[in-house]
């Protein structure tokens, strides 16, 4: 069993992202190098130690954002900038409330500038995040059945939810079309229509979501005879734009729903069904399909009547 996960990032050559990176750098250098002078420029007449250290800290933050955006661009850095902007606005707001009249004009001007920067950062973060990270998952296994038989099993799309943990239901809606419903992270339901793009008996099945899907996705399963009459090698590739991009993936991982693990386990269950007739259940993992999600598991002892109803539902 082997799974790979890959993600691509086009942010490295994005002019807006690079521009914001350089802006952070230009702001951060004087803040760190001459915090007192920078504070005075914002309207603080006699910067105290607190003013100076706060300014230097903001500078360090800016330099970190600059390094991130320029060296390893990622939407998280843009959201980091948005967070920083909100901090700055809060500080400036406090300065406006508590001002003693001197340098007020400069503080107002600074606040207007930061507001404009915030708007730019929010725009960049939202648009760059929404252009979510394309993700490609692959997994492979071998089953002791001939390719034709394995292909026939897979091509009955309505059976996919029997072994694919995240699939709730697949409904066939036409000769080449189907409707899919999945349980996404945080229990949110996501649905789409898909079309079968290729179906070669004993060789290949490929599908993709049609326009307007919540998550653009496509997938294919290839079947090849295993050497030495050992049945069929199955290679699954799923591609999809994960909502929230890499942030979404990180959040999903945090909740134990790492997609490549799911696909790995999905294929194990497919193998169980093809080779033994059904998904094997234990007392520790009576739900069968959710075995990994249930760790730590219930004790390995018979189920109560209520547990039994739930497990077999």
């Amino acid at each position, binding site marked *: 069993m082997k799974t790979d996960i890959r993600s691509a990032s086009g942010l490295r050559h994005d002019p807006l992202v690079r521009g914001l990176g350089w802006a952070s750098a230009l702001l951060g250098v004087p803040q760190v190098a001459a915090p007192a002078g920078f504070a005075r420029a914002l309207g603080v007449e006699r910067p105290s130690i607190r003013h100076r250290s706060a300014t230097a800290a903001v500078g360090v933050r800016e330099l970190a954002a600059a390094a991130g955006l320029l060296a390893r661009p990622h939407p998280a850095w843009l959201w980091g900038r948005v967070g920083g902007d909100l901090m700055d606005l809060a500080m400036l707001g406090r300065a406006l409330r508590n001002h003693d009249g001197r340098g007020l004009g400069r503080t107002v001007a600074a606040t207007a500038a930061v507001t404009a920067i915030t708007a730019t950062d929010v725009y960049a973060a939202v648009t760059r995040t929404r252009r979510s990270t394309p993700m490609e998952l692959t997994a492979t296994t071998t089953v002791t059945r001939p390719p034709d038989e394995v292909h026939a099993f897979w091509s009955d799309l309505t059976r996919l939810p029997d072994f694919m943990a995240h699939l709730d239901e697949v409904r066939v809606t036409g000769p080449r079309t189907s409707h899919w419903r999945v349980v996404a992270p945080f229990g949110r339901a996501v649905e789409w229509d898909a079309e079968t793009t290729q179906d070669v008996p004993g060789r290949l099945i490929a599908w993709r979501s049609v326009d307007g899907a919540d998550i653009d996705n496509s997938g294919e399963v290839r079947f090849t005879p295993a050497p030495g009459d050992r049945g069929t090698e199955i290679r699954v590739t799923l591609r999809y734009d994960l909502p929230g991009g890499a942030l979404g993936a990180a959040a999903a991982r945090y909740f134990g729903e790492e997609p490549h693990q799911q696909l790995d386990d999905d294929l*194990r269950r497919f*193998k169980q069904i093809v080779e033994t007739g059904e998904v*094997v259940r234990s007392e520790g993992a009576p739900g069968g399909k959710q075995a990994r999600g249930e760790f730590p598991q*219930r004790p390995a*002892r018979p189920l109560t009547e209520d547990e039994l109803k739930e497990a077999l539902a």
Partner: protein
Amino acid sequence: MKANCWTGRNSVEVQHVPEPSILNNRDAIVRITSTAICGSDLHLLDGYVPTMEKGDILGHEFMGEVVEVGPGISHDRLRVGDRVVVPFPIACGACASCRAELYSCCENTNPNAGVSEKFFGHPTAGIYGYSHLTGGFAGGQAEYARVVLADANVLKIESDLSDEQVLFLSDILPTGYMGADMCDIQRGDVVAVWGAGPVGQFAMDSARVLGAEKVIAIDKEAYRLDMAEAQGYTAVNFESADVRSALLDLTGGRGPDKCIDAVGMEAVHGASHIHLYDRAKQAVRSETDRPHALRQAVLSCRSGGVVSVIGVYGGLIDKFPAGAWMNRSLTLRTGQCHVQRYMEPLLGLIEQGAIDPTRVITHRLPLAEAPTGYDLFKNKQDDCEKVVLSP
């Protein structure tokens, strides 16, 4: 029903639990007539196997009468009333491993294969009552058990052999036999067996059945060595003798042709400083297993010989004598027993009287006294060799 449950490190308790029901189409429910405590249960008891949950039912050596059969099982194969012995590893019979008779490496019966794969590189079969790493299946130290893929696993007993004669076909007799089988015993071979517990005793019996000229038992418990000597085997007590010298002496300086490690991860060493070194590393989890028997077997075996490992290892060991193994052309063979491969032929040997499995039984207790049985067996009190429990 009553069941013996793991309730934490060094603690088991007979509790009331629900009776099992059919979860998969090819399940059967067995009313257990005899069950046993295995040496490997002690690894669970001692807390050396991860992924135990409080309340897990222990036990993977059991037999009984079929009281319910799932709808996916043909009545020609199995029906209510059949008397069956249940092999401890759950096999599907259909995957590549099962087809190659590597039943304990079955690719389909461990629902927690993803976790087991992280520990072992590839997943292994489900096992009853043996942690969640091997699937989280309820064990057989109970009044009833659910038997998974029953039609592909159980051995039907149709003769009038007693429970005690056939119960050990579930694990320790095939395990001992596989230890000898992997040695590829030739005429004139001297076979040394580390560990004179029940599995070691059966490895000795099997080595003799398979044609060994001389069988040597290595242990520190005098009563266990006496038990081996009573069968005509030569005893070496590692507390009073240096094992390597004793083995050289017994083999004219050649070393045993074949060596069987029937001890595994919780070995003790005759030299206390070496034992303490490994015990300390195990305590801080910088190694999980104490491999004294394995090290000794590799260093003692004659060049070109076989070291056959049936004692259980769970994780990592330190200071494996790789130089001795490599430079002296040793063959290392191992595996959790592929019980289904050996049950029928061993049943034949029992029927012929070539092997008497009952000879290792020293204690018979009701299931309710399982904790006492664990205590006697673990602490080797009252000359305890093997405990059989009756529900």
